[in-house]
């Protein structure tokens, strides 16, 4: 039934900036402190307190501007958004309204087999609010002001998204980019990155419908669920002859349903006006240019480099660039070793990532082991030890139990690559195998595998399989 319907989605993403202090006060900007620990007189809205802009936030916004292809505005203005709430001590949120710091950007996302350009209308800096806690006491609500004044960058897309999958791809691309340029930790569970979804439905090719806004979604799973539920809800209303009301919706994570929080008639009049306590932000071209080198290589740059210069498979390259720390680890290993990047990449996304996952480690934690890892990979690629032996030693290397070469000796895993020794073993293995030899000479390739296996077994797995293969072929062809 929903086949001829399509959804039109725009996203407002709130990214918490990774500054050490807040947007307009010197309180620490950190998650997980005791309630009201990171609160000073400015944050708590004491009389006569004044905001002082943290220029680090501007620098992060500029970085984001470069990464998301924005026009970086030299002139931007902080305004006050006025409303009453107990976790908003000033009675207003300082935000940018008419003159945001970034406008007209875009990113490309995967959509099926193609790339799709998602246009971004604007991004502006604003303060986060505190938290009201209603479930501690039956009678009282509690207020935690730690988050008050935390810097947010609100990134507002155009309604260019047309499926839950696209939204997820857009959101994860944003997350990846923001983490790459080191402006946001991307931790959705802690609320460092959250999204408001604006969704409307229409019959294909028709005018835009009335939209509803689903507030404050902080996981990919919830975003997908909320979109799917809301899409169907709106279709059902229209199919039932009803009309969509422009509402602000909440997503109930326990039921997986969206429900109306307030309708447009009750929407706030925020009475925005320029904050007279702050001067407009006036940036020089020089100040903007200075930030550019700090942006560094972006995921797409790395992907191109990995494909063109290192000849990686696209799927493997994508796994490595997914997170900056992966790429950093990979590139560190390349720079320290003569092993082929492709060989390193295969081991990284295979056994090394498996080890990290199994042991619940941070990728970063291996940064000081890269030399040992590449030494091990060198032993494998030079056929000093077998692939199998490599897999056996790797966890020990990653656990710091010793140097690869020592471990190889200790465990006696060095490959037998002495052709004289191998010839002897092979000769012995061929004794009494006349029938199979004839089969091989008659064209049965499968027999070769059997002989290699037999020889390897005779070397207790230490024989160099390539060499065995080579010698065997020579002997069998005689």
């Amino acid at each position, binding site marked *: 039934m929903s086949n001829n319907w399509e959804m039109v989605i725009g996203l407002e993403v709130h990214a918490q900036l990774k500054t050490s202090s807040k947007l307009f006060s010197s309180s620490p900007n950190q998650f997980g402190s005791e309630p009201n620990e990171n609160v000073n007189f400015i944050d708590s809205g*004491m009389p006569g307190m004044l905001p002082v802009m943290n220029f680090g936030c501007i620098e992060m916004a500029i970085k984001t501007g470069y990464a998301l292809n924005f026009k970086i505005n030299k002139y931007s203005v902080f305004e006050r958004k006025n409303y009453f709430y107990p976790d908003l001590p000033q009675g207003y949120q300082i935000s940018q309204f008419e003159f945001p710091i970034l406008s007209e950007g875009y990113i490309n996302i995967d959509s099926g087999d193609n790339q799709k350009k998602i246009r971004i209308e604007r991004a502006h800096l604003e303060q986060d609010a505190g938290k009201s806690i209603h479930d501690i006491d039956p009678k009282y609500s509690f207020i935690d002001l730690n988050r008050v004044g935390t810097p947010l960058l609100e990134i507002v897309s155009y309604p260019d998204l047309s499926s839950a999958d696209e939204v997820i791809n857009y959101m994860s691309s944003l997350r990846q980019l923001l983490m790459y340029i080191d402006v946001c930790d991307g931790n959705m569970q802690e609320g460092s990155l959250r999204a408001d979804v604006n969704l409307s439905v229409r019959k294909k090719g028709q005018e835009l419908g009335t939209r509803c806004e689903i507030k404050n979604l902080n996981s990919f799973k919830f975003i997908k669920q909320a979109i799917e539920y809301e899409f169907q809800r709106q279709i059902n209303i229209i199919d039932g002859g009803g009309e969509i009301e422009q509402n602000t919706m909440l997503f109930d994570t326990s039921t997986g349903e969206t429900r109306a929080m307030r309708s447009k008639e009750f929407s706030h*009049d925020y*009475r925005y006006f320029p904050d007279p306590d702050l001067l407009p932000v006036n940036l020089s071209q020089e100040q903007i240019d200075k930030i550019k080198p700090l942006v560094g290589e972006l995921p797409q740059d790395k992907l191109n480099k990995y494909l063109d210069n290192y000849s990686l498979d696209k799927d493997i390259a994508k796994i490595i660039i997914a997170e900056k720390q992966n790429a950093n680890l990979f590139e560190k290993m390349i720079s320290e070793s003569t092993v082929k990047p492709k060989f390193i990449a295969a081991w990284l996304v295979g056994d090394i990532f498996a080890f990290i996952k199994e042991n619940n480690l941070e990728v970063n934690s291996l940064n000081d082991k890269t030399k040992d890892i590449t030494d091990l990979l060198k032993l494998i690629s030079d056929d000093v030890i077998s692939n199998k032996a490599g897999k056996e030693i790797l966890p020990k290397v990653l656990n710091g139990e010793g140097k690869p070469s020592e471990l190889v000796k200790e465990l006696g895993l060095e490959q037998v690559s002495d052709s004289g020794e191998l010839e002897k073993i092979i000769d012995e293995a061929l004794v009494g195998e006349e029938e199979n030899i004839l089969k091989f000479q008659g064209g049965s390739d499968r027999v070769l595998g059997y002989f290699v296996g037999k020889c390897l077994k005779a070397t207790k797995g230490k024989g160099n399989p390539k060499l065995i293969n080579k010698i065997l072929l020579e002997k069998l062809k005689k």
Partner: protein
Amino acid sequence: MKNSISQIKKALIEKKISVGELYDEYLAKAKSGNNNSFNLVIDRENNISSINDSQNRYDNGNPLPLDGIPLGIKDLFCTKGIRTTASSKILSNYIPNYESFVTQQLLNDGSIFIGKNNCDEFAMGSSNETSYFGPVINPWKNKNSQKDNLVPGGSSGGSAAAVAEGSCVASMGTDTGGSIRQPASLCGIVGLKPTFGSCSRWGIVAFASSLDQAGPLTNCVEDAAYVLNSINKYDFNDSTSSNHQREDYLVDINNSFEKKIKIGIPSDYLEDVSDDILNQIDNTKKALSKHGIEFVDVKFKTTEYALSTYYILAPAEASSNLARYDGIRYGVREDGESLDDIYLNSRTKGFGDEVTRRILIGAYVLSAGYYDAYYRQAQKVRRLIKNDFQRILNEVDFILTPTTPNEAFKIGDKLDPISMYKNDIYTVPTSLAGLPGISIPSGLSKNGLPLGVQFIGNYFEEKSLLQLAALAEKELSFNE
């Protein structure tokens, strides 16, 4: 004639009086409280260590610039550990845990605070009648109607009255649209509003952030220079604080000008004014002409728009600045069934009528659909007013105007807000332009009440402005 800061310092240096005796003398007057000029006075024991430290510095021969000088502080400056109310019920129990930048400078320079001066509630008013702690009475009486209690002007009415009655040597006020200059004029003292950006607003209860400016109310121009030397400093914590190089305002204050000075008198300010007011301008003109100063007529193009511009912008900012007084974290909270009721009750009962009126005006002019017609338009007009002043200050060195359109009036006389707002007609344009202005006493009205004139200078040219005011003061001084 009351003693000036330099006279008092001389007496302290020469041991004719001790810091403690000086304090007691002023404290006694402040405590008598006849004019309700203080919301709170600080007993000697609560200032004893400051008094002793100050005396020690005199005894050791190294006194600080304002050492031992008893000051009044408008109850809008947050003072650490001392109740700060903004003369509002909603803050009537508020004790800050921090000291405002300006008062900290005064403490650093050795002055001692006598108490917190009454003022209009949140500095909104021109007569000091909106205070939760009751009106302040002007120490001056109409000689033709001695029994009437007159207003001291506002909003720094308590500061002006306290200096005039002699219960402090000088007082710190704030001026948003005339709140230092107008009461100074009505109480026969000196009031200086420095250039916006001179003195930090950090720790001053905000009324209208783009206009609020701290400044001294004093017995004489030289005292204003003493205080300005202390408070006029760059402050990183106020983003609108200017970080230009400050001058020593005392150095040349009694010197005559080296260059030829030209003063403009805006003829449009003097239409429909009383003879009393015209006389002030004429007196001043005569007095200064003797010193070779030239007077020329100038004409503003924007004067008629200033008051309406001010009464859009100031309430707009105030409506937002006062949003934090919600009874949740500090201040007086009224009970309610719901969160909205707590807000509603706390704010309805916590704010007086004038404050409520301005919050409503401010919310209105900022609301959707009205913003462009009111707030945005007013911002544009404000720019034109600035340009208008700049144009005239390109032609002349200073501008001379009356400070107020009338003498002090009877408490309760002006009930209509509009007629009250008109009291600031000569001071508001300067505030909108951000320029410095000083009011000095210029003569007495027919009823024997003090009146003042205002000199306006260019941005951050307080030094020559004070020099001019000191020159005029010598010629214009009158006896009570």
